[in-house]
């Protein structure tokens, strides 16, 4: 095991290499630029290719091309670039091309604040493209070390499910320096629960079975298998067809291959102080969860029965984690409230769900502890000017 004091971007690069990624195409954007830079340094050393694209749309399409040629590929960006992935993301979903996409959230909309953390793409990662009729898989780490783990995991899931998998981070995790351990052999990878799935080649002639099966090898071109892939509704052989029934079969596969095999990744969550039916459950993901965990520990020491639920697997949304009849507080790095809507939907009917939103910075311990206390005492929450959104 090698230890480094390095950034999340470094950890993601090393994770990708461990997972077998040998192709990265990207477009410089704060705060994912350092990831592209790290890839440009490290990939050639490992026999891999780094390419800079003319825009994010081209970057992800180039990754699709490399993946279709049999390589494990990855791209990374922030919100304004993620929106340009809309086109290729849909194509990769439809053609079932394994890829990994990293989105390091900053403050939006549009260019917004480039060097500050935000969580404005919670829903965008669920619906990254047009048309619907698909599920996405999204993993959200909260540390540099976990960035590495989730990158490895994303590559693993991308291969097994034949689809793009998104890692949703934020500026603080990708730019921040932390203690990072990089495994040096298979044994150490196993110790860290890193799973790797090799690229396989579909031999055809049926490339798109209308079933929810996983572990079907993806389409790889150049092996004279007669492989076909396109942006149209595919027949099982990959021919384009304009027929609702065929499309329904295809959509069934895109939705249910994920829904029916969630057990493969639904263990990616973290609970703290949750074993004694807490009066208040604080829900978060990514960087704010680190302050939430500290605040919940402090609240416990003050006698408040508060627990913390951190989501790592964001999509498909883990409804099963929200069975407790309790009060909930959702803490997010945005002012409009995104995760909170999903929590409101998932909790038992008579649960009260509150929201604490801050963007561009982390919530303070004071903000969190005051809010916990108010909710437990049934005191009303209110907005503090433009600074803090609470309801």
């Amino acid at each position: 095991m090698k230890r480094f004091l390095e950034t999340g971007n470094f950890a993601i690069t090393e994770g990708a290499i461990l997972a077998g990624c040998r192709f990265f195409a990207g477009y410089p954007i704060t705060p994912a630029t350092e990831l592209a830079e790290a890839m440009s340094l490290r990939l050639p050393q490992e026999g891999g290719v780094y390419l800079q694209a003319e825009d994010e749309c081209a970057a992800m399409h180039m990754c699709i091309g490399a993946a279709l040629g049999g390589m494990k590929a990855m791209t990374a960006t922030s919100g304004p670039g993620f929106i340009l992935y809309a086109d290729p993301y849909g194509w990769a979903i439809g053609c079932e091309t394994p890829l990994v996409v990293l989105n390091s959230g900053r403050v939006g909309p549009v260019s917004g604040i480039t060097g500050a953390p935000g969580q404005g793409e919670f829903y965008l990662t669920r619906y990254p493209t047009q048309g619907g009729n698909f599920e996405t898989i999204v993993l959200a780490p909260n540390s540099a070390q976990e960035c590495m783990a989730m990158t490895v995991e994303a590559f693993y899931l991308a291969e097994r499910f034949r689809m793009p998998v998104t890692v949703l981070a934020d500026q603080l995790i990708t730019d921040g320096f932390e203690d990072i351990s990089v495994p040096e052999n298979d044994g150490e990878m196993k110790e860290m629960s890193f799973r790797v799935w090799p690229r396989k080649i579909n031999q055809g002639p049926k490339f798109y079975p209308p079933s929810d099966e996983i572990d079907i090898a993806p389409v790889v071109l150049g092996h004279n298998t007669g492989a076909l892939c396109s942006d149209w509704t595919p027949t099982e052989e990959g021919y384009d067809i304009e027929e609702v029934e065929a499309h329904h079969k295809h959509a069934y596969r895109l939705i249910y291959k994920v829904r029916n095999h969630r057990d493969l990744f639904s263990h990616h969550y973290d609970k703290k102080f949750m074993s004694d039916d807490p009066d208040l459950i604080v829900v978060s993901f990514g960087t704010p969860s680190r302050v939430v965990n500290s605040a919940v520990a402090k609240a416990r020491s003050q006698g408040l029965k508060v627990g913390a639920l951190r989501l790592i697997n964001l999509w498909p949304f883990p409804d099963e984690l929200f069975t407790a009849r309790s009060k909930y507080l959702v803490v997010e790095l945005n002012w409009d409230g995104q995760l909170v809507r999903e929590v409101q939907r998932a909790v038992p009917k008579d649960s009260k769900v509150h929201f604490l939103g801050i963007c561009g910075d982390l919530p303070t311990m004071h903000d969190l502890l005051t809010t916990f206390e108010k909710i437990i005492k049934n005191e009303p929450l209110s907005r503090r000017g433009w600074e803090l959104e609470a309801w």
Partner: protein
Amino acid sequence: MEYKASELISKYLRSRKIPSTACSGCGLGMNHKIVVQAIQELGLGVEDIIWGTSIGCAGRQTFATWKGDGFAGTHGRVYAIARGLRVALPPEKHLILTVGDGDAFGIGLTHLIHAARSNANMTVIVNDNLGYQSTGGQYGWTTPQGSKTDSSPYGMFEHNLMSEGLDVMHILKGAGATFLARHVSMDGLKAVETVKKAILNRGFSLVHMPYPCPTNFASRELGSRNQVNIYRWIKDHAAPLGQEKEDTIWATGIWYDASNSRPEFSQMVWDTVDKIRRTGKI
């Protein structure tokens, strides 16, 4: 050398997609045959070529026609996909892209320019039906000046990539393409010879091939779906390079040939990766 279409079809194309579902009288099949015949004359097999297409008439009608491996990209992005694929494919595999004018010169022009810049080994056949015909017939970036289309009912009056002395080839040459040519689909065997050269260039090649669309373009501009009229109209407005007349829109022939003069993209990428691995520098 003349080939029967049936021989080419049985050797190279999938019976499920040939004949295509193109409109009656569509000229795309002529372009398609020119490309397949060039492949045959070069002695290439099904396994030697990965066939990519775009969307629109040219993309959809040629997708999955090739017996070997094939793909259709999102609108205008196939040149970016092809660059990624080029890196991953063995160098001896040929990458042929049959695309439309809207795809290459409209939505995909940025990606096309960057494919030319990088000199990635691919042969792009731009099948130009003079506008957006699969959506019913709107003007595009090579629609001749003054043409009436569904979105230019008074005549197409904007500056265009193929009018007033402008030629899209200038852009591509400036960007670094190493083989550029133009033929109309009636050029037949002359076009076959050109496409052969395009395929043999280990770098970025593009052949621009205007073809007749009787259904939409001709019905609006010429007021007739009679295919003879549009075939004659295109032929009359084409002339070999150097023999252009006043009303020539398309100067045909090899426009620029710098085949194998610049290092090819994927070769350069892999050579560089190899050098960095061995020496730590380039």
